[in-house]
């Protein structure tokens, strides 16, 4: 120790200790400041965050409203089922997880396909079902193995069910998982809070149009959760309010009979109660099973439905536009009376053709019908009469009158996405075509408009509506499917209609002329075979719409490919003196209206007016020949 001064060394050591002690105090002061910052100054903020952590608002999805027919038959309902759901963001290897699940629960290829489709369409943090409708046994099995599958859980969910399957699918529509477009609609109505926890949304049909009625009010449960998100206890609860029920004007039994009447043919039928505009049946066939869409459709079914040449996803009643053919003639006649271009008894001579500027517009009947008045022109469906009439009226008169009947316009039915069809007019042509020479309306084009051909293209619902207007003496009621909405909370019924939308101001005697002539059609004209022996008086008109123009040659059904065959049409109302039902039938590629469409109308009217049930689809009456048409 002689090399150093122990005292000095000790002093230095102690000074170093003092420095260390000072450093300790400095650091502890820093900590203390930090604690003051967190626990006093920022306390409120962290208090809130701790509460946010702890308390979770769990939405309780309300029961979706039911859809019932006019007699209370349930067309759409809900059932509760267990689903096996995966939250992709919480899993590492999705395929491995699904393979593992398949080891304990039956997961088929179609489940995987459907899941993959859902995955593409959804956000990563959503919980997506891999299997729905688990049995109790499957639930128990999974719970025993749950620890092996992080991010997979069993949930009890409400599912929509359409007990009729494909029945009435085009009017009911379906619900599917909420997508970006749906979110925009929800945000547009500021319903985000109410849709927390809802993962389905009406996609088409009534489910879409009345989405916000059917949805109901979401309830909330305030629960205390732990870090794993598991609920520890419930703090407060607001009960959900179920969605409102829809009661339709549709008669399910009539709808069923109408659908079955088509057999395996394609087409549409719309039956309206003329005095209210309430739709009694709205058929578009082929249809599809909306249940497929509820828990997400798998790719294969989706492809089949969309790529089928029969186009089952198209609602032909609202979105198919067809030339009306001869069903147009009663409306033409009514127009002529209204604008004063014809008197009922005025006679026209039909040589079998109409000559316009050297071009012969041919009548179906070789040699013509001879002398024809208005009654005969409708009963026998005389083309020449209407060639001449169209020429006399001119396109402006025709389009303005047909516009009043609602043709070529959306009817405003309570299903979204209805087509307009085409009401030919000078204005329409100007808008429709780009080249100036095509934009001009030629007088020759008016001629075939008169027999419901040419540019004419209307949806079946427009034809039904026009027929209903005639049946209802010129007063139009907006066609609608929902009769009333029942408020679940109060039980009060909120009627949707009927308020007359407009009165066309048609003269009763004019309508009588048309009605008489249409009664004549079913008594002694083109509809007589289909309506032979009916126990009621009905008014009707057959029609055949050209799909394929045969230049000069005679049309023979057997000689043309099925998809090029003419469309068969029929419009009718009954009983003729006090109509309770008006309808339009279209059978795609069905041939003559009298053959294919009129028998379907007969079955529908028989059931509606007499309660008579058919025992087979309406047979095509091959013997019926519409000698007067084409």
């Amino acid at each position, binding site marked *: *120790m002689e090399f150093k001064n122990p005292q000095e060394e000790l002093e230095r050591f102690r000074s170093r*200790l003092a420095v260390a002690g000072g450093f300790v105090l400095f650091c*502890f002061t820093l900590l*203390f400041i930090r*604690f003051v910052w*967190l626990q006093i100054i920022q*306390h409120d903020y962290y208090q809130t*965050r701790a509460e946010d*952590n702890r308390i979770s608002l769990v939405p309780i999805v309300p029961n979706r409203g039911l859809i019932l027919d006019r007699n209370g038959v349930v067309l759409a309902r809900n059932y509760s089922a267990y689903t096996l759901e995966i939250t992709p963001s919480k899993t590492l290897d999705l395929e491995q997880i699904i393979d593992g699940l398949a080891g304990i629960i039956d997961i088929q290829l179609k489940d995987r396909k459907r899941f993959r489709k859902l995955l593409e369409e959804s956000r990563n943090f959503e919980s997506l079902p891999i299997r729905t409708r688990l049995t109790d046994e499957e639930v128990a099995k999974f719970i025993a193995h749950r620890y092996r599958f992080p991010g997979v859980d069993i949930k009890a969910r409400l599912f929509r069910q359409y007990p009729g399957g494909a029945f009435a699918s085009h009017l009911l529509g379906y619900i599917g998982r909420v997508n970006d477009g749906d979110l925009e609609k929800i945000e547009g109505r500021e319903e985000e809070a109410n849709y927390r926890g809802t993962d389905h949304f009406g996609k088409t049909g009534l489910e879409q149009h009345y989405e916000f009625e059917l949805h109901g009010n979401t309830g909330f449960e305030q629960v205390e959760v732990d870090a794993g998100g598991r609920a520890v206890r419930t703090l407060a609860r607001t009960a959900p309010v179920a969605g409102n029920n829809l009661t339709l004007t549709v008669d399910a039994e009539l709808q069923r009979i109408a659908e079955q009447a088509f057999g395996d043919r394609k087409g549409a039928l719309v039956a309206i109660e003329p005095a209210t505009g309430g739709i009694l049946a709205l058929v578009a066939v082929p249809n599809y099973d909306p249940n497929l869409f509820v828990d997400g459709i798998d790719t294969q079914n989706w492809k089949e439905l969309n790529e089928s040449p029969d186009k089952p996803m198209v609602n032909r009643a609202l979105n198919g536009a067809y030339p009306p053919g001869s069903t147009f003639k009663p409306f033409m006649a009514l127009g002529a009376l209204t604008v004063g271009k014809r008197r009922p008894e005025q006679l026209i001579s039909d040589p079998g053709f109409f000559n316009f500027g050297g071009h012969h517009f041919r009548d179906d009947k070789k040699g013509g019908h001879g002398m024809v008045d208005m009654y005969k022109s409708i009963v026998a469906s005389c083309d020449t009469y209407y060639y001449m009439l169209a020429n006399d009226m001119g396109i402006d008169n025709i389009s303005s009158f047909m516009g009043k009947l609602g043709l070529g316009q959306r009817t405003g039915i309570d299903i979204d996405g209805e087509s307009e069809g085409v009401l030919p007019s000078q204005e329409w042509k100007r808008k429709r075509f780009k080249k100036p020479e095509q934009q001009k309306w030629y007088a020759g084009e008016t001629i075939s408009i008169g027999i419901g051909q040419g540019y004419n293209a209307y949806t079946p619902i427009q034809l039904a509506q026009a027929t209903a207007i005639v049946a209802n003496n010129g007063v139009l009621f907006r066609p609608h499917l929902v009769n009333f909405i029942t408020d679940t909370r109060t039980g009060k019924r909120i009627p949707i209609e009927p308020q007359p939308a407009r009165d066309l101001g048609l003269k009763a005697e004019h309508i009588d002329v048309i009605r008489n002539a249409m009664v004549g059609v079913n008594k002694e004209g083109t509809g007589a075979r289909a309506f032979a022996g009916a126990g009621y008086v009905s008014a009707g008109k057959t029609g055949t719409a050209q799909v394929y123009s045969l230049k000069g040659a005679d049309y023979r059904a057997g000689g043309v490919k099925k998809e090029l065959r003419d469309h068969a049409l029929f419009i009718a109302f009954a009983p003729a003196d006090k109509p309770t039902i008006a309808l339009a039938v279209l059978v795609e590629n069905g041939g003559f209206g009298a053959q294919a469409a009129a028998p379907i109308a007969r079955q529908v009217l028989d059931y509606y007016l007499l309660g008579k049930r058919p025992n087979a689809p309406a047979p095509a009456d091959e013997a019926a020949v519409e000698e007067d048409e084409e």
Partner: protein
Amino acid sequence: MNRGMGLAMIRNLVQRLIAPIDPPLMLIAGLLLLLAIGVMGSASPERLNSQLINVAVALVVMRILAQVPPQRLMHMAVPVYLVGVLLLIAVALFGDVSKGARRWLNLGFMRAQPSELMKIAVPLLLAWFFQKREAMPRLRDYAIAVVLLLLPIALIARQPDLGTAILVLAAGFYVIFFAGLSWKILIGMAVSALAAAPLAWNLLHDYQRSRIITLFDPEKDPLGKGFHIIQSTIAIGSGGIFGKGWRAGTQAQLEFIPERHTDFIFAVFSEEFGLFGNLLLLALYALLIGRGLMIAANAATLFSRLLAGAVTMIFFTYAFVNMGMVSGILPVVGVPLPLISYGGTALVTLFVGIGILMSIHGHRMLVQK
């Protein structure tokens, strides 16, 4: 034997048993242990019993070391250090991997974590080293000391175990600092350390880097790496001045605080006992450190002084790094809250330190006499 003799014998025995124990240190450590039992009863009641066993073992170890004279410790310095380094090499070669780090050595009958040993072995060796340089230590001596320090640290950092490496580095540094390394060189080292930081950054593991990044902006990754810090600061902040009460901390009881019985136990304590609890804890640590520094100031030999000073400052390092990380002002490194966090190894190490302090205090007069 009559009753009086028996009582005397028992009294004698108890006196011999408690004689080496320093009452102030024991009192402070005892209060901290009481707090520890309280917090454990809230954070993880099911571990309370096994932690009580750990405490008992640690107290026995402390009592044994309190009796070992500093000279004996000095003789053990070199062998302990060498065994420690050899074990660290063995870990690097044959160690078990757990959570991506190779820290454990399977000795057949038990699994050992040799890096823990180095927290005591390194200051022990360096104190011995400076004691051996009888003259005023020269720069060369400091250089040798630094090499002796960095060898085990390199091995520990490689495992990787950043927390332990920092603690061992700090322990060694304290010895060198107390040995009187000039301020000029200290400042020079600090400057060059800052300059070398980018280099060190490259040597860090990804998870270590992300911990540092997360420290500066935990909200960037709220569900991943930032989760620990966010949840612990929420726990502390929501505790307020008086705390939410024992076992009433929602962050703790609903398991939002991760590792709440080990490294993040301070968040549980702070949420339930608030700013007052924190102040109490800081005061107890400050008293413990103050007592330790006092023992160092009065120690008999250079070896004792350096060892006592370094061991005391280890307690500070543990406490500051842990509370700093849990409250979000230091990066998350695996350092427990001294005497409070669950775990036997760290507890034994800390009580070894307290035992050494007691021994140094108990033997402060012997040489001078």
